[in-house]
């Protein structure tokens, strides 16, 4: 089974467009989906790619913010992003009103591999890391790939509703407070699920991804794992060199790769997990 390899990040596909807000829908507790009309980008976006959204006229906040494309409907020309309020930029996006204009730069980065059927893809999402999976699930489903879904969050209200994925999935979940599914972390229940998967795609905090990677690396038979990483970004298109993440070079040597061009999605074995975890978390930047 040779999966279709991810297309390399191709800046020629990126558009600097303007989206128009169609509405902001609450999703569970403290999470929203922001829907925009943005046909230029909606027709190009692939699973796991991201957009740099402008969160104001500037100069405060100054930089765009990166968000994974959650949904892209080429026919309707609609893009959706899933997010929670963690700071000024996300607060502004969550407060958009219908008709407000938003700068959309994208699609950017390298996305997830969509496997060739027959195959089962296990999608592993921690918290806001659910964002890229509706688009990935729909692409896989259209292609005939079976799907499993493992979602972890602090509480039931923070889980991403499986029915919103837009594709049939075998659904599993873990909550820290035990309010739905297993009590604990998703990594507590990941092991057994690997047996049924041909491939794993994961997105969430770096610490969670590192644990997922170590569990997958120890499982037999070993399944390919792709992870979507985060890094603070200056530009999103490979120019500022600001989003370096530690990777292992071909010869295993220490190296760095740009999260916005080589990633955000990378093969797990490419990532230098111990160096990554030694860094201050991206969300403190």
């Amino acid at each position, binding site marked *: 089974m040779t999966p279709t390899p991810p297309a390399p990040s191709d*800046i*020629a596909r*990126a558009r*600097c467009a303007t989206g128009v807000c169609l509405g902001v829908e609450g999703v569970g507790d403290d999470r929203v989906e922001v829907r925009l009309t943005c046909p230029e980008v909606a027709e190009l976006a692939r699973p796991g790619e991201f957009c740099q959204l*402008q969160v104001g006229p*500037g*100069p*405060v*906040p*100054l*930089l*765009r913010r990166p968000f994974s494309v959650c949904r892209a409907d080429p026919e309707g020309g609609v893009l959706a992003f899933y997010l929670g309020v963690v700071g000024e930029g996300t607060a502004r996006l969550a407060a958009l009103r219908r008709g407000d204009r938003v700068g959309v*730069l994208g699609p950017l980065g390298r996305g997830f591999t969509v496997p060739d059927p027959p195959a089962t893809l296990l999608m592993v999402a921690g918290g806001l890391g659910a964002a890229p999976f509706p688009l990935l699930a729909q692409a896989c489903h259209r292609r005939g790939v079976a799907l499993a879904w493992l979602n972890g969050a602090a509480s039931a209200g923070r889980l991403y509703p499986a029915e919103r994925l837009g594709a049939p999935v075998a659904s599993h979940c873990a909550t820290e407070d035990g309010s739905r599914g297993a009590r604990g972390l998703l990594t507590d229940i990941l092991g057994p699920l690997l047996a049924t998967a041909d491939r794993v795609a994961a997105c969430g905090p770096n610490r969670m991804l590192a644990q997922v990677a170590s569990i997958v690396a120890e499982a037999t038979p070993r399944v390919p794992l792709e992870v979507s990483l985060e*890094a*603070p*970004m*200056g*530009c*999103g*298109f*490979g*120019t*500022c*060199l*600001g*989003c*370096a*993440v*530690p990777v292992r070079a071909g010869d295993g040597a220490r*190296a*760095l790769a740009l999260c916005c061009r080589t990633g955000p999605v990378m093969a797990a074995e490419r990532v230098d997990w111990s160096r990554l975890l030694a*860094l*201050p*978390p*991206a969300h*403190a*930047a």
Partner: protein
Amino acid sequence: METVSGGAGSPGHPVGFDPTVAIGRGLTLPNPVGVASGTFGYGFDLGALCPVDRLGAIFTKGTTLHPRPGNDPPRVAETPAGMLNAIGLQNPGVEVVRRDYAPRWRDWAVPVLVNVAGGDIAEYVAVARRLDGVAGVSGLELNISCPNVAGGLDFGIDPRPAARCVAAVRAATGLPLVVKLSPNAADVAEVARAVVGAGADAVSLVNTVVGLKVSLALGRPVLPGAGTGGLSGPAIKPIALAQVARVRRAVEVPVIGIGGIRTATDALEFMVVGADAVQVGTATFTTPRAALDVLDGCQAHAERHRLCAWRDLRWSALG
């Protein structure tokens, strides 16, 4: 150059409006709006997001003798109306530049100036020598002011070592030589005088200002190491304008203004205090075609006010 050329010579301009900017040693920029070092790579990254052909100049990423991997992450952080970076001069080294990049620049309408960096004078000289006479390379911008590598600042804040470095590079190349000044010098005008005396054809300023951001949650700076990085963006525009005005009074050579330019108004403000040209930096990150928008706005201003040259904008007290 006396002829009317480029986009700014289009209908609406008074006959005789000259949009070009002479830098010296045969280098004339088609217009005054360039892109700043480290914010436009080597000109290949942005593709259709910002077509290069109408730009006034491209100043490349800082280039050293050997490839450099750059600093550990995180490397960027946002601040009020600005950003910090500590990229640490990640670059492929001068050989890649002369072998792979320069040939592609040869057919471009836009002059490309390679930003040269180094750990000591010998490295600056070695890089400059390797670029001398390379087709496609229109000039050098000597970065004696990078705050993010050990030793990078020393040349920029003290007139004597700055002059020594420039004199050595001047002897090694016939290329037009722009020297990029640091805003962290106690008296930037003194440094400017020194580097012009040592052979600089023009000066550009400002490079980033040393800054630091703290994460209270982590109890430490956000950037690694000592935690400092280079501050850029609108926050530093007033600092840059003050230093450009000061340098304008100190030297006769062309001055290229840099720092927080996002709009045509920003660029024109630099011309008021004496800049002959400008560079758009951080703004490209949020608006990839920022430099072209700035150029269009400047040209519209020139038409509206029927300027004969950008010089007409200059504050009379600067002569």
